[in-house]
């Protein structure tokens, strides 16, 4: 738990650094970036700094490419069995996501927001990967996982649910009728399609906070949960509700998540290829930044 927070702090710190840098960079290069692309070369001094091959512009591109390559460490960590014990996969994913969001942003500044040709294709591919990554992260969060980040099997899920229900019955004295009523909050969705399941998934997420508050208020009043146990009680009830809802849409989420790879990954590979080509071509044609 402590280590997860530590990574969060690092990501917040990095975000603040990048944000500060980009704000300062935007202020400095505002005149240049506001000039039409066809006229920028006439601003020779600013073009030498903020143009794609300028001192700062190229540097930002260099940083974006570096982050783009760092993204791949998550993939390596995920698939290379020898690295399986190195950090929790969910923490790696945070960095993966952070790189995936920041790198396109930096690439935009590197290209001075000229999104045509090679740079343009790569940029929109990056945006597609980033957006699909955000959707993927959402789906990823709805697949129950163990602490090490690996997916739980259906058996493990059911065992977890049963454990939580038992806790509610044994430790807080919730009656079987109330347990049934509680379980009844999650409707059965047998036989509906994948898209409808995803729709219900979103509805669950929106309605869950309200449902939780209703149940907790009712149970607290009737069962008199002590202050010491209140947090644990709330967590148990919430987990039980979450698990119930996620089991229902698990098949649909798993199926979509599987297909989501088909979108996310090809674009990612394309970026990797085009980025590599871009770097090779620019270096080949003499654009070596400060080196």
């Amino acid at each position: 738990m402590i280590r997860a927070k530590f990574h969060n702090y690092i990501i917040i710190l990095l975000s603040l650094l990048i944000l500060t840098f980009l704000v300062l960079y935007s202020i400095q290069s505002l005149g240049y970036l506001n000039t039409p692309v066809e006229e920028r070369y006439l601003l020779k001094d600013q073009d030498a700094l903020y143009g794609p091959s300028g001192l700062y512009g190229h540097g930002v591109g260099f940083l974006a490419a570096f982050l783009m390559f760092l993204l791949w460490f998550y993939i390596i960590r995920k698939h290379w069995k020898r690295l399986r014990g190195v950090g929790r996969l969910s923490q790696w994913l945070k960095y993966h996501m952070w790189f995936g969001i920041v790198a396109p942003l930096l690439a935009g500044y590197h290209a001075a927001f000229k999104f045509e040709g090679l740079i343009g294709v790569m940029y929109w591919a990056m945006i597609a990967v980033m957006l699909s990554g955000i959707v993927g992260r959402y789906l990823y969060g709805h697949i129950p996982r163990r602490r090490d980040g690996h997916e739980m099997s259906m058996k493990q899920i059911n065992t977890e649910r049963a454990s939580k229900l038992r806790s509610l019955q044994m430790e807080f004295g919730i009656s079987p009728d109330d347990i049934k009523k509680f379980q009844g909050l999650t409707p059965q969705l047998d036989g509906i399609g994948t898209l409808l399941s995803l729709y219900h998934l979103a509805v669950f997420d929106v309605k869950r906070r309200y449902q939780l508050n209703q149940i907790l208020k009712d149970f607290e009043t009737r069962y008199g949960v002590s202050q010491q146990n209140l947090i644990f009680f709330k967590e148990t009830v919430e987990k039980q509700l979450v698990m119930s809802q996620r089991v229902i849409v698990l098949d649909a989420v798993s199926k979509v998540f599987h297909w989501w790879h088909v979108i996310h990954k090809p674009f990612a590979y394309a970026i990797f290829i085009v980025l590599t080509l871009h770097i090779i071509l620019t270096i080949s044609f003499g654009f070596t930044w400060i080196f």
Partner: protein
Amino acid sequence: MRFSFLGLLVFLFCSLRLEAQLSPGPLAAPHAHLSGLTNCLTCHTWGSKDLSPKCLECHTPIQTRITEELGFHGNLEELDCLGCHIDHLDRQFEMIHWEPSQKDFDHIQTGYELEGKHLMLNCGECHNRDFIISEDILEYARSQKTADVLSTTFLGLGSECASCHIDVHAKEFLDQTCDDCHDETNWETARVDYDHDFDTNFPLRGAHKILDCEKCHTTTQDAYGDFQAQRFSGLNYTLCTDCHDDEHKGSFGSDCLKCHTENTFKQVELTGVFNHQRTRYPLVGKHINVECELCHTQKDRYNLTSSFDQCSDCHADNHEGIFQKPDRDNSCDQCHSVRGFFPPLFGVIEHRNTRFELDGAHLAQPCIFCHEQDFEPVYQWEPLNCHVCHATIHGSQFLDYQQNGNWCESCHRTSDWSDLTFDHSATFFPLTGKHIEMDCSACHISNMEIIQYEDTDTSCSKCHIDVHSQQFEEQSCKDCHSTEKWKIPEFDHFTQTSFSLDGQHENLECGQCHKFEPKLNTIRFKPIPHECQDCHSFGDFKR
């Protein structure tokens, strides 16, 4: 994984052309033929971002000018083609950027400063395929299959005038340059520092100095055969008649300068060889300064056959023949001389011989006061009387007199309008006493801007105020007053009133009984109560 690679392939090869993914953008139209992945290295070099050497490999005319330090590119301090001619921005992108604009481009950067009229020209008027003379440009244009170089290039012009301008002198001045005579401000005229007096065998004098060149250096069919050319050499100028027509048809010889100067043909130098005084008509007075053409107007104008007896041979009769009488000398010099039509010789003395001898105030009047009406000269009037010049100010008065033409003279003289001959004693109101001393206007006052003379009211009250406040309404003023003096000299209280003065009353002053009465605002004369007690109290009487 299988799906991922499939998606990747679809993305790379189907969604967009591969070329578009490797090129930073479409090449501009002049480089469009270099589009395509296989052409990258036509412009780019491995390991160097400096494309200039590659640019100049194709753009050989530019390379030539840089090497020879000619033109705009030859004067650049730094060789960096991309600094000005960037590409990959779009097909329509203009690769030549004019600073600040094509029209305002500082042409001195090309090594050829635009001056004078050149500054007003549009670029295309000089940078025209017809004026391109540089062989390397022409050769380069021939080598370019895909572009019309001659229509777009700004290179290849010569700096000599003849590279753009036609030699209108038809190779007449091959040993000189155009700017020996012309400058860029005006092609039409030769430069001002060209000195015709020293640089030619024909110094310009008199009117020749202000002539336009083409008056002498006429445009004729070129002797060399090509076109109309203005000739500046080989002109005949020994005799005036080489340029000027001989109006005298040779009758005065060939040396025009005997009579004329170069200042003007119109004036003959009388003190020179030609002397008009020796002719049949010596010039006198105003004739001396008259332009020759005013008299010598006809075809054979210098051999006039006129006798010169009559002024009307040359002059029009401004009087339209009114002085042409069969019984007298009708010549103009009766009134005018050759010293000028004005003033005429016809004066006061001559006027005595007319129907209207001038006297009095008429002697002092300028002629035009009478002899010009509505800006037209007038010399005859019928009938001739005062009214032809003077308007009447008496309106419809004196109708009886007006029947007579000279009725004004009944009262007025020519010496002065106010010097009257009028006899007031012949009127119904002969002037007597104090009336004789009065100005006419004291009695004859203006009525509607016409002074009333006829039917003037002769009653005393017309002019005099009744100071007695109508006490004597039933009496006439004359009963007491006379025109000699207003004050009554002898008033007989005995006969003229009902109260005779006697005794002590005789010694009284009038005012002791006739006192000022405020109610009447005058002295009361009548009626006055004349009982004793009306004036006296009982104690007043002494025995």
